[in-house]
């Protein structure tokens, strides 16, 4: 079966299940007895296994299968959850994530068998089975033991078939011709929704390879779903044991198919036990600890066939059907509006034209809003991995801490959500490593021993705010200052004049780390400046507030969407340009006499601060339409902490603009970040204030 077309869905759903597993296993650690959680985990693991199996990712399937076994034991109450088990499970999830990433990049799961993890899981299984005894037989034996006990039941199923006289004759004839006679039992999964369909599929597959002599229950009953979870067949075939059911076992939602050579002799008891070893129990899941099994070989072959190295990750957004309904409605309204305008233009006079335009305007505004919403996804997909991370950090750093999250449902543009994960992770790691004090120090300071880290997200007007807060030590301004001087970032003279806020902002300076010891958690000095530049590249900003011994708060402010921005339209030499409103501080009318020269650069003195000015006409290679002695219009823009004044000819006004790419053909122009189409159909370029400063 060509499964490539399902790859995207598979990846999406796998990620979802992994996320849910992560969260649920964390819950499980808190409440080991909660049956809802366990059921949820079991379901997710089961779906994962099924999906991996369908897609032919055997290694992934093997691992999930064993995880599922463990979950099943937990669900049955025969296994107790402990911290070690949770650790192992998390490692399994990491391994699964690795498989998923491999699949996303190359359509292949990779070659890591994760045998060690599988063994660990089996150890737990064994321990629970044997009541914690260590002197248990090797896992292989145990696995087989378990298998046989299941098989015994299974094998008996087809033995129940009563043979009529005519069937007996057929079988004997077949036997004398040297054909193989097999008894087959098929077990459908309990969760299977279309039992009849699945059973019939198996029936069909077997029918292709073998002549079906007896079927119990009769075929008609199977089609009508008048059977429990299993059915049995006696078949005559030219093929070998395995060959007969080779295709049939590919049918999904079949728990297993057992095939055993059938003895026509009435006392079928003797071969039973002997055949026990020869019986091929083809479970849908391959046995993990037997890499030499034929299935493994087959899976390797199947993998080879896949196009290697072809990237498979297409970015998709899952859209709530309600949002699409709203869109659909708006489009129909748009058509109505158009129709009424058409009708009006035909009619004499055309009185209601203004009305129609107003109507059209409201429809387009709503349409724009809805389309924007379609691109929005909740940040949950990013933040849901953090509790797990904090748990790991807590163990690694040997500090007790707890993460409290709120506002996971806050929505952001898909492109922003994809990018925001790393910066947030960095801030959280920082909070855990540098922010929170050691357990002892916290007790000494009279704080609760368990440190708290908060991750809050909420919408604020046209922005989304994400806060990372801790109740730890806060930022030691003096220590930052000393470090900055030591590193040569600032001079002692500068330090003396800097405000506390300015000094804290030095943390965002490249190559700055105050951690006294470098750990693998943080403290390599490539953290906060990366966070800052990442967030700025998303047109956002990051701020920090801190008070010593009480904790610090990092605030990230992001625009709701990147595709549409508020901009100030200006003209320079008769050409129209847009400047993002986000970067604009103020607009000043300056007399040419107030422009001074400092180090050969033009500056203005604006309420005490000296701001360099940039004449846009020079930057854009165009003649200014203003005479040199006229007052100049200066748009003050901000990049991080730096200000600059852009000299423009005229202001047109504020406008909401849709950002269009200039295309790769004209990509060399650094100061232009894109273009937009104005109301009259003309193209205006968007100036990148950051590149100008």
């Amino acid at each position, binding site marked *: 079966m060509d499964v490539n077309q399902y790859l995207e869905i598979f990846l999406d759903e796998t990620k979802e299940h992994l996320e849910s597993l992560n969260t649920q296993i964390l819950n499980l650690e808190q409440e080991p007895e909660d049956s809802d959680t366990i059921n949820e985990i079991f379901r997710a693991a089961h779906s994962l296994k099924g999906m991996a199996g369908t897609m032919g990712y055997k290694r992934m399937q093997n691992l999930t299968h064993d995880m599922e076994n463990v979950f099943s034991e937990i669900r049955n109450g025969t296994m107790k959850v402990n911290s070690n088990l949770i650790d192992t499970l998390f490692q399994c999830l990491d391994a699964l994530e690795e498989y998923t990433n491999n699949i996303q990049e190359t359509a292949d799961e990779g070659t890591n068998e994760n045998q060690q993890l599988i063994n660990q899981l089996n150890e737990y299984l064994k321990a629970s089975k044997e009541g914690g005894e260590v002197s248990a037989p090797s896992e292989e034996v145990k696995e087989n033991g378990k298998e046989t006990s299941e098989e015994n039941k299974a094998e008996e199923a087809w033995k129940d078939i009563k043979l009529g006289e005519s069937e007996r004759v057929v079988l004997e004839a077949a036997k004398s011709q040297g054909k193989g006679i097999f008894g087959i039992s098929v077990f459908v999964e309990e969760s299977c929704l279309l039992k009849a369909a699945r059973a019939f599929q198996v029936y069909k597959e077997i029918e292709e390879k073998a002549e079906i002599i007896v079927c119990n229950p009769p075929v008609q009953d199977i089609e009508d779903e008048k059977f429990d979870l299993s059915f049995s067949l006696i078949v005559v075939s030219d093929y070998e044991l395995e060959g007969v059911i080779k295709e049939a076992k590919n049918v999904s939602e079949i728990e297993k198919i057992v095939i055993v050579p059938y003895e026509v002799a009435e006392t079928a008891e003797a071969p039973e036990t002997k055949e026990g070893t020869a019986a091929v129990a083809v479970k849908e899941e391959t046995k993990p600890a037997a890499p030499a099994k034929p299935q493994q070989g087959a899976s390797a072959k199947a993998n080879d066939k896949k196009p290697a190295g072809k990237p498979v990750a297409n970015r998709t957004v899952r859209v709530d059907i309600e949002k699409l309904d709203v869109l659909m409605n708006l489009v129909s309204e748009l058509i109505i509006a158009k129709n009424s305008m058409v009708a009006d233009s035909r009619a004499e006079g055309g009185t209601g034209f203004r009305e129609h335009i107003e109507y059209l305007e409201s429809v387009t505004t709503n349409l724009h809003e809805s389309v924007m919403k379609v691109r929005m996804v909740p940040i949950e997909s990013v933040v849901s991995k953090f509790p797990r991370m904090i748990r790991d950090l807590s163990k690694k750093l040997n500090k007790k801490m707890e993460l409290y999250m709120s506002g996971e449902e806050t929505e952001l543009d898909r492109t922003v959500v994809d990018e925001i994960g790393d910066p947030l992770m960095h801030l959280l790691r920082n909070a855990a490593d540098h922010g929170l004090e050691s357990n002892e120090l916290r007790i000494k300071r009279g704080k609760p021993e368990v440190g708290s880290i908060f991750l809050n997200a909420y919408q604020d007007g046209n922005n989304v705010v994400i806060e990372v807060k801790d109740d730890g030590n806060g930022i030691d301004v003096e220590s930052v200052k000393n470090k900055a001087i030591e590193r040569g970032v600032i001079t002692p003279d500068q330090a003396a004049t800097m405000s506390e806020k300015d000094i804290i902002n030095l943390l965002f300076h490249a190559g700055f780390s105050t951690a006294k010891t470098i750990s693998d958690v943080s403290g390599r000095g490539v953290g906060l400046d990366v966070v800052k530049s990442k967030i700025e590249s998303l047109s956002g900003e990051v701020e920090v507030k801190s008070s010593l011994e009480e904790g610090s708060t990092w605030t990230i402010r992001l625009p709701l969407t990147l595709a549409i921005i508020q901009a100030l339209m200006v003209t320079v030499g008769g*050409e129209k340009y847009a400047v993002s409103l986000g970067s604009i501080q103020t607009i000043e009318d300056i007399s040419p006499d107030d422009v001074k020269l400092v180090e050969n650069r033009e500056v203005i003195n604006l309420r005490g601060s000296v701001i360099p000015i940039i004449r846009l006409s020079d*930057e*854009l*290679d*165009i003649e200014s339409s203003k005479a040199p002695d006229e007052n100049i219009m200066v748009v003050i823009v901000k990049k991080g902490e730096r200000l600059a004044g852009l000299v423009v000819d005229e202001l047109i006004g504020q406008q909401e603009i849709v950002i*269009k*790419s*200039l*295309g*790769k*053909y*004209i990509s*060399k*122009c*650094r*100061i*232009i970040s894109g*273009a937009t*189409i104005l109301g009259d*159909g*003309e*193209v*205006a*370029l968007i100036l990148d204030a950051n590149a100008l400063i």
Partner: protein
Amino acid sequence: MDELKVSGLDGADVKAGYDTQQYIVIKLGHEQYGIDIKFIDNIVRMQHITRVPKVADYLKGVINLRGEVIPVMSLRLKMNLAADEFTKATRIIILKLEQHGTIGVIVDEVREVVTLSPSQIERASYDGKEDKTSFIMGIGKHENELISLLDLNAVALEK
């Protein structure tokens, strides 16, 4: 609409054999050039071009083509001819190229569609004397007229 759909230009010539190629004949000054029709997306009348600063001189800027922002270049400047004079006949030919995406080129005039069979095309000889030669991949002969066939990838290539 001020657009001239290419499909409207086809007509009788379409019936030609499968190994023939259709070219749109354009004029630059007194010379005739042919552009392979399969690269042409659209032909639009001259419209306002928004200048983009700090790019090569032959890149005249960008235009709005039904909501898309498309770069436009002057074929004359690219081929080191005298600068364009915009007249009523001036057109922008929108090309869709695999490597370079969508680009508009300004031409003096669009004349007709011709169908050329391989026998009517003479491959260009690279004598390297003239700068223009590198943009031409062959000469087409059609009704006693010579048409220089443009190598569009060379035209689009940035210098």
